[in-house]
């Protein structure tokens, strides 16, 4: 394992210390329990937004804490759900009296830990709503299973809900907007290489020098299919078809598109993928109204990318365009 770290067990703590030192103007980092809050939290009268999940997906979520996006993020160990005490403390820290929204990615651990935290907070009189994001079309959805994983749409939901909260929407409205984003967002990912969890010390999965994994999760969970590597064009068509046909997105739709790097893929390739996606969607009569190209929800140093499309109406676009000022996303400020 080759990493720029000291001891594997200290990675999360020391990285958080780096975030604290680098972004003292934007965020405060609390240790034991670990969470990151806006420097000006709690904002009185504003709905608070808390998210969180395992570490190793940076900049998500800590990089999205700040004005116009998250009020707090709870980082767990690498690829491990945070615990209810973190979420409870974070929720209390950001509660400005208007209630708190928990944005949760659909993994059994995340869902149950957030659920316990919500119960603890509600027991103390804080109004909490939870929205679970489950946008990964690579996973078969079913009432009888854990359902789809929460991936790229989470980033878009955090931005959009953050804007809604910032302009003063109430808890129910912000939660409804979050559900709307989840209902209209779809993602799929692929990997060229594995990642290595620091504590594990070896790659999560083996993959041949000419293979790729399509439909992979953000923790290196196996995907839909292992196959021989293809061209960027073919990969985009494969993932694009799966995404577009699922909602389905239709000719005439406007979308917010994200071409997201898994951590180890350089920007020159992500822009090349964006070019293919743009062509592909044009061919379907779908217009990219806004976009993100870069590393936003990663799997440590995994090489690969994911594509997220969110069908967007004027309401969502207006919220998307609203000012945001976080370590990883900034505009209008």
């Amino acid at each position, binding site marked *: 394992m080759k990493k720029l770290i000291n001891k594997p067990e200290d990675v999360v703590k020391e990285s958080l210390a780096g975030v604290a030192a680098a972004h003292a103007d934007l965020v405060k980092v609390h240790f034991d329990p670990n969470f990151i809050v806006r420097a000006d939290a709690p904002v009185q009268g504003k709905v608070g937004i808390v998210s969180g999940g395992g570490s190793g997906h940076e900049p998500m979520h800590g990089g999205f804490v700040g004005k116009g996006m998250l009020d707090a993020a709870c980082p*767990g160990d690498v690829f*491990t*759900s945070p615990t*209810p005490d973190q979420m409870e403390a974070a929720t209390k820290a950001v509660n400005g009296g208007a209630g708190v929204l928990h944005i949760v990615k659909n993994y*059994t*651990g995340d869902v149950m830990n957030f659920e316990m935290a919500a119960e603890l907070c509600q027991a103390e009189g804080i109004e909490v709503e939870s929205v679970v994001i489950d946008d990964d079309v690579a996973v078969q959805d079913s009432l009888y299973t*854990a359902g789809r994983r929460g991936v790229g749409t989470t980033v878009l939901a955090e931005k959009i809900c953050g804007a809604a909260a910032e302009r003063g929407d109430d808890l129910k409205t912000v939660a409804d907007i979050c559900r709307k984003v989840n209902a209209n967002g779809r993602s799929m990912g692929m990997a060229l290489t594995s990642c290595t969890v620091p504590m594990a010390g070896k790659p999560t999965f083996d993959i041949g020098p000419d293979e790729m994994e399509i439909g992979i999760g953000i923790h290196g*969970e196996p995907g839909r299919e292992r196959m021989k590597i293809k061209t960027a064009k073919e990969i985009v068509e494969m993932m694009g078809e799966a995404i577009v046909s699922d909602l389905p997105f239709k000719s005439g739709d406007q979308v917010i598109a994200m071409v997201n790097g898994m951590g180890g893929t350089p920007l020159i390739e992500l822009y090349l993928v964006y070019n293919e996606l743009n062509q592909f969607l044009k061919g379907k009569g779908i217009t990219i109204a806004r976009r993100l190209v870069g590393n936003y929800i990663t799997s440590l140093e995994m090489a690969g990318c994911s594509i997220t499309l969110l069908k967007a109406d004027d309401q969502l676009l207006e919220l998307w365009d609203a000012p945001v000022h976080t370590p990883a996303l900034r505009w209008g400020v």
Partner: protein
Amino acid sequence: MVSRDDVLAWIDELQKVYAANRQYLTDLDSAIGDADHGINMDRGFTTAKAELEKTPPADINAALKTVAMALIRTVGGAAGPLYGTFFMRAAAACANKQELDAADVVALFEAGLAGVIQRGKAELNDKTMVDALSPALEAMKQALQNGHGIKEMLQSATEAAETGMKNTIPLKARKGRASYLGDRSIGHQDPGATSSYLMIKTAADLWS
């Protein structure tokens, strides 16, 4: 009868059992999950034991509550809330009891399992810890009805849990991380069912 000290001895022993099975449970989880179940259980019970030593609990209820909070705070993932809820509900079932008789022990496990099911919404044969806990509880109830003592009761529960654990092997997972694997989850023993089996077996070894 099960005293406060018996409960403490159980937690003490569970810490040793999960430390000894850390690699085994993690290997099971690496086949169909994310290779951390043994690490998680070891961490959780090491903390639970340390907390109990730091602040000795007044009674069984306090002991189980301390365990619950330790698991909730330090285990994370799926197992943290599930076992945390198990012990939280178990604690509530023992409120104001200085000792547990056989019926109280059944009540403890029944409340715990109800918590797990409420939290995780798993049904029998979803390939989870419920597949070990649920048959174990049935066996306890049967034993209680048959007038067996705590020892025998827990022994039949252990046998039922072991059978339930082994029965998870051919199952396709429908809950938790393993469910993403679909058919690829078939042929592997569920790590959570295994840790649940160990929990019951350890009680059976100690309590009478």
